[in-house]
């Protein structure tokens, strides 16, 4: 007979990465600031558009802040009869492609809009035409904005930020929130685009341990049954998250995982030992799941790189070595390898997504420079396992 299932959780969905809490501890000032920046949208919609940058480290609350703001703004607009849409796009999920990002925005209004037959520029005009027809306004949040800059460069961002210049005397319908980790990437943009974006920046500071305790305690009361998570456990999680750069997302993930370990061991309380077990398992999983978004050949190329590092035990690989490893993988999966130029593009995507890092090295004793590839913080064994499993589904 099965034993009666007991759980420390009351509602574990409150620990999901996509859950947006009603209250954002230690981000109320920033939320008020964001609301102030966009106050015109409720008072005089169409009279102006806004471009805001939210910058902060991983887990500093950038995404949740913009999403909470979006929910509040659209609810308030609805009350006033303003047709406002908040569209949140993770640029990295769309590999930084302006076309795919804009397509996502268009599909909010026309879900069956065709995916082919026009350029990103045309799509931008189409989006504006739709907004004009429906007398609608959009706040478009470009999360992980770095990916868009890496992939499309300054031209695409210029078009997005200055599009009203081609629409003289027409309502301004598209506002932007650009979410990024570090403002340094903006240096890649031309001076005019940079100055447009840098005029309204909200910096999110790293959470302190005390702030992390407050955030985690809020989530404990939403997600766990009473008295199942002792203060010591919350404090330990906050310590670990604090050492990870004040990463609240990491802390919440750790809290959920620790709860799972407690359930698996049939405990009625989430002990510090559950947290320690959870911490040792969490590091590898965070990046791996993102491999599913890669295209077939990006996966094959990354698998080649992972195998190279697994077998050679070296820290760096040259592009030629990675290319060789990729050719072997293609043969194994019976797929025709792509050209050298195409591999360059894949390398740029993999680098933008964060799976690999590249650096340029001066060749000693010969002319020219070469690109070196390395894996930052990802185990080659784990990556190989994950990619092989994904490719078996694809090929």
């Amino acid at each position, binding site marked *: 007979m099965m034993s009666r299932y007991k759980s420390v959780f009351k509602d574990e969905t409150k620990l999901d990465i996509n859950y947006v809490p009603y209250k954002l501890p230690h981000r109320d000032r920033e939320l008020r600031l964001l609301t102030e920046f966009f106050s015109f949208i409720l008072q005089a919609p169409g009279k102006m558009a806004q471009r805001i940058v939210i910058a902060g480290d991983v887990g500093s609350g950038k995404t949740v802040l913009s999403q909470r703001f979006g929910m509040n703004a659209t609810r308030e607009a609805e009350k006033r009869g303003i047709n406002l849409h908040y569209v949140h796009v993770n640029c990295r999920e769309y590999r930084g492609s302006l076309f795919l990002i804009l397509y996502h925005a268009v599909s909010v209004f*026309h*879900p*069956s*809009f*065709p995916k082919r037959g*026009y350029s990103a520029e045309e799509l931008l005009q*189409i989006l504006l*035409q*739709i907004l004009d*027809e429906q007398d609608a306004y959009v706040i478009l949040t470009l999360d992980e904005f770095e990916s868009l800059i890496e992939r499309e460069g300054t031209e695409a961002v210029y078009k997005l930020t200055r599009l009203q210049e081609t629409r003289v005397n027409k309502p301004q319908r598209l506002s932007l929130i650009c979410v990024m980790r570090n403002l340094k990437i903006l240096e890649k943009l031309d001076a005019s685009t940079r100055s447009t974006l840098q005029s309204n920046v909200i910096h999110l500071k790293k959470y302190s341990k005390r702030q992390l305790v407050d955030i985690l305690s809020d989530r404990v009361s939403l997600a766990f049954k009473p008295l199942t998570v002792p203060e010591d456990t919350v404090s330990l999680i906050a310590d670990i998250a604090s050492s990870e750069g004040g990463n609240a997302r990491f802390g919440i993930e750790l809290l959920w995982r620790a709860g799972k370990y407690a359930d698996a061991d049939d405990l009625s309380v989430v002990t510090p030992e559950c947290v320690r077990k959870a911490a040792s398992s969490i590091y590898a999983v965070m990046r791996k799941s993102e491999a599913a978004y890669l295209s077939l050949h990006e996966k094959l190329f990354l698998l080649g790189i992972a195998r190279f590092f697994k077998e050679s035990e070296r820290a760096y690989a040259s592009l030629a070595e990675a290319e060789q490893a990729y050719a072997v993988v293609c043969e194994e999966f019976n797929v025709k390898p792509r050209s050298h130029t195409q591999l360059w593009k894949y390398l740029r995507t993999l680098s933008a997504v964060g799976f690999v890092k590249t650096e340029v090295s001066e060749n000693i004793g010969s002319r020219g420079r070469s690109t070196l590839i390395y894996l930052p913080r990802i185990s080659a064994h784990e990556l190989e396992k994950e990619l092989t499993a994904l490719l078996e589904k694809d090929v």
Partner: protein
Amino acid sequence: MKLEDVLSSRLRIRIIKVLIQVGELNVSEIARRINANYKSTSMHLKILEDEGVLQHKTYGRIRLYRLNQSSPRARAVQNLVEIWEHANKGERQDYSGMSGVNF
């Protein structure tokens, strides 16, 4: 055009059914779904639009077709299709218990 002429084409009926199901689509996608070529699909779409059953919006080079909800004809055709399809589904359910009946 007379009613019997408008509704005498299988492709036109398929177009109407697809658009009732999906809401709106571009010409190539309609052609793909009704298994017809682009030219012939465009011709049937034009007939249905001229008769007030469909309407389209143009976005750059893209034309999106949908039922013309402001037209009584479109609403009548939609009713007909929905009642017909619903009745067919009901019949299938009625017969599903009988041996030797395949749908």
